[in-house]
C-alpha cells in the first residue's frame, strides 16, 4: 500500500516537473562544428554544454572592462582577434594603471585540446584560466569576490545569467563556465594549409610553400606537431636566459630543476599575425626566431635533446619556411563575426 502511494507520488512529482518546465524558454544548445580528422577535445563539454546564451554571456564578459579593478582592461584588451587573440606589437602584456607583466600574451584558439595553460603550464583547466589574468595585480587586478559582487549588481548580467543558466544567480563558477564556452568556440582550422590538406579543389601550395612545408616537416614538426602545430609540451628551446627578466619557466611551477627554462611549445597556426614571439616577446620578426634556432641558442643543462644541435636553416630554407608559415594564417578565424568585439554599454 505504502509502495503504491510512494509510486503515485513520484509520478505526480515527475508530472509537476515536466509541466513546470514546458513553455519556459531554456537556453538553446549550440553545436560546435569540428573537422572529423581531429582527436576528441580534452575539454569535457558534458559538464558545460555549449548554448547560444552561454556563449553570448561569455563573449560579453570577455569584452567587458568591468572585469578589471578600474574598469579599464577587458580580456579582449590584450587578446585581440586580428592578432589571433594575441597582443599586437606588445612584447609583454600590460594591465591596469600602466603595469607590465613578465610574459607575452599567448594567442587563443583550439583551447579545448589544451591540457594546461600559461607559458609555464601552471594552470590546469580552461575554466580556471581566466582567474589568473583577472586577479593578477599587473593585469586586471580585480579581487574575484569583489568582481562577483559587481556583476551581481548589474541588470544586464542578471538577465544574461538567467538566459544562460536558468536563474539570475551570478557566481564565479557560472562566470567561468560562460567564459569557457566563448573560448571553446575559438576554433582555427580554416587556413590555406587546411584547405590544401583537405585537397579542396583548386587549392595547392606554391613551390616555395611546398619547399617550406618540407623543411617544416624535417626540422620543426617534432615539437610543432600537426594538426595543432604544437605537441602541448614544455621544452627549453635554447632561448638565452635574460637576467633582467629572471624567468625560470616551468620550474616555478614544479620546483624541479629539470624544468629550468622550460616553456610551452606555442602553436604555429596564425603565427605571422601574432608577433612578437617567445614567452617574453623578445623577437618581433619571425626571421629573428629562425636565426635563434640557427645560431643563437644558449645550451644549458635542460636544453631539449631535439634542439641541442640547433636547427641549421639556410637562407633559402628560411624564406620558404616563411612562405609556408604564411599558409597557416586563418583569415576566416581572425574575421569570424561570432568572435568580434562587442560594445559594452553600461
Amino acid at each position, binding site marked *: 500500500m505504502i*509502495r503504491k502511494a*510512494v*509510486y503515485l*507520488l*513520484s*509520478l505526480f512529482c*515527475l508530472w509537476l516537473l515536466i509541466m513546470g518546465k514546458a513553455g519556459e524558454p531554456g537556453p538553446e544548445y549550440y553545436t560546435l562544428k569540428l573537422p572529423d580528422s581531429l582527436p576528441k577535445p580534452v575539454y*569535457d563539454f558534458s*559538464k*558545460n554544454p555549449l548554448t547560444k546564451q552561454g556563449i553570448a554571456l561569455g563573449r560579453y564578459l570577455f569584452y567587458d572592462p568591468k572585469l578589471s579593478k578600474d574598469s579599464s582592461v577587458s580580456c579582449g584588451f590584450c587578446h585581440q582577434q586580428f592578432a589571433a587573440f594575441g597582443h599586437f606589437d606588445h612584447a609583454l602584456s600590460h594591465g591596469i594603471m600602466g603595469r607590465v607583466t613578465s610574459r607575452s600574451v599567448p594567442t587563443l584558439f583550439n583551447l579545448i585540446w589544451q591540457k594546461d595553460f*600559461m607559458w609555464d603550464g*601552471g*594552470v*590546469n*583547466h*580552461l*575554466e*580556471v584560466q581566466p*582567474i*589568473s589574468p583577472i*586577479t*593578477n595585480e599587473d593585469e586586471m587586478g580585480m579581487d*574575484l*569576490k569583489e568582481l*562577483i559582487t559587481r556583476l551581481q549588481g548589474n541588470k544586464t548580467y542578471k538577465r544574461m545569467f538567467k538566459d544562460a543558466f536558468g536563474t539570475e544567480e551570478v*557566481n*564565479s*563558477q557560472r562566470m*567561468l*563556465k560562460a567564459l*569557457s564556452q566563448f573560448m571553446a568556440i575559438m576554433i582555427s582550422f580554416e587556413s590555406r594549409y587546411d584547405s590544401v590538406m583537405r585537397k579542396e579543389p583548386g587549392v595547392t601550395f606554391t613551390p616555395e610553400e611546398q619547399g617550406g612545408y618540407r623543411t617544416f616537416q624535417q626540422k620543426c614538426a617534432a615539437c610543432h606537431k600537426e594538426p595543432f602545430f604544437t605537441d602541448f609540451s614544455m621544452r627549453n628551446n635554447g632561448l638565452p636566459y635574460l637576467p633582467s627578466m629572471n624567468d625560470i619557466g616551468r620550474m*616555478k*611551477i614544479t*620546483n624541479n630543476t629539470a624544468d629550468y627554462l622550460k616553456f610551452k611549445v606555442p602553436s604555429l597556426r596564425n603565427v605571422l599575425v601574432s608577433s612578437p614571439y617567445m614567452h617574453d616577446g623578445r623577437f618581433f620578426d619571425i626571421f629573428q626566431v629562425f636565426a635563434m634556432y640557427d645560431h643563437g641558442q644558449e645550451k644549458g643543462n635542460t636544453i631539449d635533446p631535439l634542439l641541442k644541435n640547433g636547427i641549421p636553416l639556410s637562407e633559402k630554407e628560411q624564406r620558404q619556411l616563411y612562405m609556408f608559415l604564411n599558409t597557416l594564417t586563418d583569415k576566416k578565424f581572425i574575421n569570424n563575426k561570432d568572435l568580434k568585439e562587442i560594445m559594452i554599454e553600461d
Partner: protein
Amino acid sequence: MRYCLLLISLFVLKGAKAQTLQLNLNHTVNGVPMALGNTTYLNAAGDTFNITVFRYYLSNFSVTDIAGNTIKAAPECFLVSEDSLNSKRITLKLPEGRYKGLSFMIGIDSLLNCTGAQSGALDPIYGMFWTWNSGYIMAKLEGTSPSSHLPGHIIEFHIGGYRAPHITQRIVNLTLPQTLVLKSSAKINLTADAYTWFNGISFRQVAGFMTPGTAADRIADNYQHMFSVKN
C-alpha cells in the same frame, strides 16, 4: 520506468532516515584556545608568534561502526575558518548506528583540484585557490613573529599541492573515546591544535611557504596530527 521510480522513492525514503552528526570544531594553540589577533603563542622552536588567519578544508568524511564497517558520508567539502563560528559547525548525515571511529581528509581530492570551476565551499572567491599554479590551498595559517625575517615579520603558510611528489592532503583517522550511539542526532567535539603545524620548524628558517614543495609536505605531515576528539 516503474522500477526506476520505485528505486528513486526507496532511495528518498532511505535518505530521510539519515541521522544528524554534528561536529563542533575548536581551535587551540598548545592547548590554549586560539584567539586571532594580538594573543601571543610560543612554538616548539621557541619563537613567539600570533595568528591572524587560520583556515582549512575538510572533506571525505566517514565513520567506522563497531563491526568495523566504513560508512561514507555524502561527498561534501567544508571550509573551516577560525573567524567564522558557522564554519566550525559541520553537520553530517549518517545512518543510525553505533560508531567507534571518525575519518576525514584535510584538504580537497586531487580530482577536484583539476576539473575546472567549482562552487560552494570550493568557490575560488574564498582565496583558497592558487591562480598561477592551479590547485586548492588545503590549509592556511597567517600571522606575525619577531623571529620572521620576512617584511613586517609576517609568517604566512599557504599549504597546498595535489600532484606527486608534493601532495598535501592528509587523512585523519580518529578513534572515538567511547562508542557513539547515533540515533536521531549526536555531537562530537573536535579540537585542532595549530601548535602541531610547526613541529621541527623555526620561523627563523622558514617563515612563509606559498607553493607546493618540500616545506609544505612537511607541514602537512605535521597538521595530520592536529586533531583530537574531546568528549
